[in-house]
């Protein structure tokens, strides 16, 4: 009997969230070999958005994972490049500034960094002892490795102290440094130049023992964006002169503006001084395969899996993982667990629902009324031609349509005529009908393929969608002792989960950075306008979820808007692309902004990248920064222009939807 619930495997558990040893857990992207941090002979800047798995990626390259006892062996080759991870306490480092400490800040920051890294080195040797490295003699040598007298003296340790004891000493000094920072009078408890002392330590101690003779040590500094400018400058200077055996790498949120200054007049420059790894770009390629493996490797221990163990962390398994047959197999396996409906099947589900069927009839009637046509709406609906029946609903609401001509084409089942509309308008029309009922959730959002579309290479979103789907299913059924081959989550549970996840993500926006509340407002305002467009009966502009701003480039100097746009990009709320699909000749906007698809299900709009709305600059400003009254006017303007029935569309927004959570 499996006492653990499947959902717990996907839930966020704080203590297990970020273990240091991620061997067997981290799914190595298939294009990893181009991005192997440890093969680089100079610094790297790792950029990634929220949920892009930045920390996991860095930790994969660090000693707790490299030395993992879960590995069957540790080869000497793997010791050539070893990473050490350091994520500063940025609330703490914010005190180590010119403002608070005057000129002493630099010495104190170096000590903070240095003590942390020495502590890591000491732990590295302890972990090495627990590693599957075969040569016991080497391990004995390392356990007994002694600090030179000058370092013993520096750290106030007895002569001939062991390197593995250094961690304890460094922790003591870190604590004293903390106390000193609380009352920063006189000298700090210890002073040394970090980079010089670490290099000295590597060259005169670590490299004297056999296994590390040829080692190069890579220090990964996470959360670089949250260090102060003067601290960034200091680290940039280390990056500028990084070389074996000590290389500095930094990681920060994509789109964050960090300084490239150094202590000298030179700046650090891309290509010359460092390489950039953009994790989103790395994951985008083959994201469906990566996503399949992430899901399967997580659930492999839950189910009785007869034929497959997923070995996802080792480079040696690439050959197998790159095999097309294997890839198709795993994708199909996940698609079976999270099945989806094609648009045609979605159409069928829609028409089996009586209320939605009535809505279609009403839509057709409205259309016929528009043309003053006496035809019977029922003639435009046929169970054998469900998709075309739905298309009729929107075509009849277009001025140019002649109901008699349309009926003739419908009766003739004119595939040629309907083809274009089925391709361009069917999903929009389906969503239009679903938006009439807040409680009905369009099943189009369900399924593994839709999850990858909704999450857009964001692993956190992907896992959340899986987690919620399993939770919804577990509420109804026990998932227990099943074979994976028999297991699948019906689309209705998935669709409910998707909507809930989408809502949760909108709710969470207010927690994203200093401008979270503003960003949340922007998403709600944009989403509501896109929903208005989605409610247009004619669907002449289907699936709008993007916008451009007319003449926006001219006003880029508008600091408040630029700042908010950038925050939207940093937190992955809007994606920026170049505006290649011009809507009209007058469309001179160069930049296109796409609302992240994870928010689409909450509003009931399309997650597919389809069409855009061209906002006037003033309208854009209203959405981004103006007061609610101005926005309401804009909203009303659009609802009038698009002839949206006002009473109905606004009702779901007048209540506090958060009440639904309780």
């Amino acid at each position, binding site marked *: 009997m499996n006492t653990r619930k499947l959902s717990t495997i996907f839930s*966020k558990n704080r203590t297990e969230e970020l273990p240091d040893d991620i061997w067997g857990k981290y799914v190595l992207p298939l294009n990893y070999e181009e991005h192997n941090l440890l093969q680089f002979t100079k610094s790297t800047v790792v950029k990634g958005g929220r949920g892009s798995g930045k920390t996991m990626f860095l930790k994969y390259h660090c000693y707790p994972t490299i030395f993992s006892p879960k590995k069957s062996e540790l080869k000497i080759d793997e010791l050539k490049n070893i990473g050490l991870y350091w994520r500063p306490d940025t609330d703490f480092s914010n*005190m180590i500034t010119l403002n608070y400490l005057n000129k002493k800040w630099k010495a104190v920051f170096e000590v903070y960094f240095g003590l942390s890294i020495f502590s890591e080195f000491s732990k590295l040797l302890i972990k090495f002892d627990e590693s599957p490295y075969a040569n016991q003699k080497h391990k004995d040598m390392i356990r007994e490795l002694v600090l030179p007298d000058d370092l013993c003296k520096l750290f106030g340790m007895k002569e001939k102290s062991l390197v593995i004891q250094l961690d304890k000493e460094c922790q003591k000094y870190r604590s004293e440094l903390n106390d000193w920072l609380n009352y920063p009078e006189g000298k700090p408890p210890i002073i040394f130049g970090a980079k010089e002392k670490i290099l000295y330590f590597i060259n005169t101690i670590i490299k004297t023992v056999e296994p590390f003779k040829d080692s190069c040590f890579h220090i990964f500094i996470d959360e670089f964006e949250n260090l102060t400018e003067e601290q960034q400058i200091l680290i940039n200077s280390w990056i500028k002169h990084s070389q074996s055996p000590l290389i500095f790498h930094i990681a920060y949120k994509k789109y964050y503006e960090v300084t490239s200054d150094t202590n000298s007049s030179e700046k650090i420059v891309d290509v010359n001084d460092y390489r950039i790894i953009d994790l989103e770009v790395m994951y985008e390629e083959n994201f469906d395969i990566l996503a399949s493996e992430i899901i399967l490797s997580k659930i492999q221990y839950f189910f009785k899996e007869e034929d497959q163990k997923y070995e996802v962390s080792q480079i040696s398994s690439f050959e197998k993982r790159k095999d097309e047959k294997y890839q198709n197999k795993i994708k199909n396996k996940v698609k079976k667990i999270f099945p989806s409906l094609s648009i045609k099947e979605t159409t069928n589900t829609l028409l089996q629902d009586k209320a939605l069927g009535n809505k279609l009839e009403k839509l057709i009637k409205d259309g016929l009324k528009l043309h003053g046509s006496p035809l019977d709406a029922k003639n435009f609906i046929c169970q054998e031609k469900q998709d075309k029946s739905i298309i009729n609903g929107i075509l009849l609401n277009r001025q140019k349509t002649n109901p008699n001509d349309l009926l003739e084409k419908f009766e003739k089942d004119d595939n040629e005529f309907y083809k274009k509309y089925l391709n361009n308008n069917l999903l929009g029309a389906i969503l239009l009908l679903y938006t009439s009922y807040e409680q009905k959730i369009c099943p189009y959002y369900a399924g593994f393929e839709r999850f990858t579309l909704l999450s857009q290479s964001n692993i956190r979103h992907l896992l959340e969608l899986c987690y919620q789907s399993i939770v919804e299913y577990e509420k109804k059924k026990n998932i227990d002792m099943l074979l994976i081959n028999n297991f699948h989550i019906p689309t209705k549970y998935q669709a409910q989960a998707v909507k809930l996840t989408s809502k*949760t993500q909108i709710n969470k926006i*207010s*927690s994203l950075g200093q401008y979270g509340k503003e960003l949340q407002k922007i998403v709600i305002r944009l989403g509501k306008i896109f929903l208005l467009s989605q409610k247009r009966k004619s669907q002449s502009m289907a699936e709008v979820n993007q916008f451009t701003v007319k003449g926006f480039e001219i006003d880029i100097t508008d600091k408040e808007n630029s700042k908010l746009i950038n925050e939207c990009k940093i937190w992955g709320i809007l994606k920026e692309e170049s505006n290649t699909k011009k809507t009209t000749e007058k469309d001179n906007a160069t930049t296109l902004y796409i609302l992240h698809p994870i928010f689409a299900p909450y509003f009931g709009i399309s997650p597919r990248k389809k069409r855009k709305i061209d906002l006037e600059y003033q309208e854009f400003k209203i959405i981004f920064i103006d007061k609610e009254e101005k926005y309401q006017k804009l909203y009303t303007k659009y609802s009038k222009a698009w002839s949206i029935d006002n009473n109905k569309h606004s009702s779901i927004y007048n209540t506090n939807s958060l009440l639904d*959570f309780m």
Partner: protein
Amino acid sequence: MSLEVTNISSYETLNSLVIEKKAILFYGETLDNRSQDILDFFSERTEKEQKILYNEETFKVQINDKTYRNIEFENKYIKNLIYDLYYLDATSLGFAELLLILHNLNRLHKNKNKKIKIIYAEPKEYKRGENKEFQDEFDLTTSSGKFQKIPPYSLLIDSTSSEKAILIPFLGFENNRLGRILESDDGARYEKYIPILALPAFEAGWENISLRRHYEELKNTNSIRFSPANNPYEMNKVLDRIYKNERNKNLVLAPIGTKPHAIGAIIFLINKEEKNIRIGLTYDFPKKKDNRTDGIGNIYEYTLKIK
């Protein structure tokens, strides 16, 4: 030696308060009419009123046109203020100002049985927010600052620390304040969190708003604690109990709830610091909205004694 709450009184109007003359009032930014009313009331009755502001960017305290680093604050300023009684208007003073004033008064008057009175006026009503879907029912702040430590209450917890900490957030109305801590932490510093809810709340039912607002943040925790919204004495006790239960663990307080809760936290922090027990603190220095509340509700007078 310790700082203790010895009396809690509640009044309906300011005029019911009996004010001692040889006293000083510390106050902060007067953003709404209740803080202004308190200042006006005291101006007619006390010997001196002093505005105190803390700048989290420079870590300095501003008094008139002078600024003091926190280590200078006691020796160069507080030391020269000899009064029978110190009044602190917690309505207008921010968390950091209250902490630093009390911390330094406590150091100055150790073992002297000195009295401090903290005044806090509840608002009659909070202003409602304009966006009802996801925004707060009560719209209290315009923007949030960075989460920062306030020396001398810093506690270092990073990836190199041998142990993570337990976060103790106090729940107010604005969930994004706790949300931001958890979002930016992402499991790096805090292994778990023990939220404290104001219960009973200032008004019956407000606890539900607070709970509902924090649904996302609370759904994975089962260790919620309660303390009355208006009672710093109880809050100090609740924190002490958590401290005893979680022996040897690093605790970090996030006083983002009610003001009396924050006062309770300050008493706890000061008493622990005196015993060389490090308790951490993280605070976001929200920019409060002008006129964010209407009118004066209950007025509380907390009497503290430095023993």
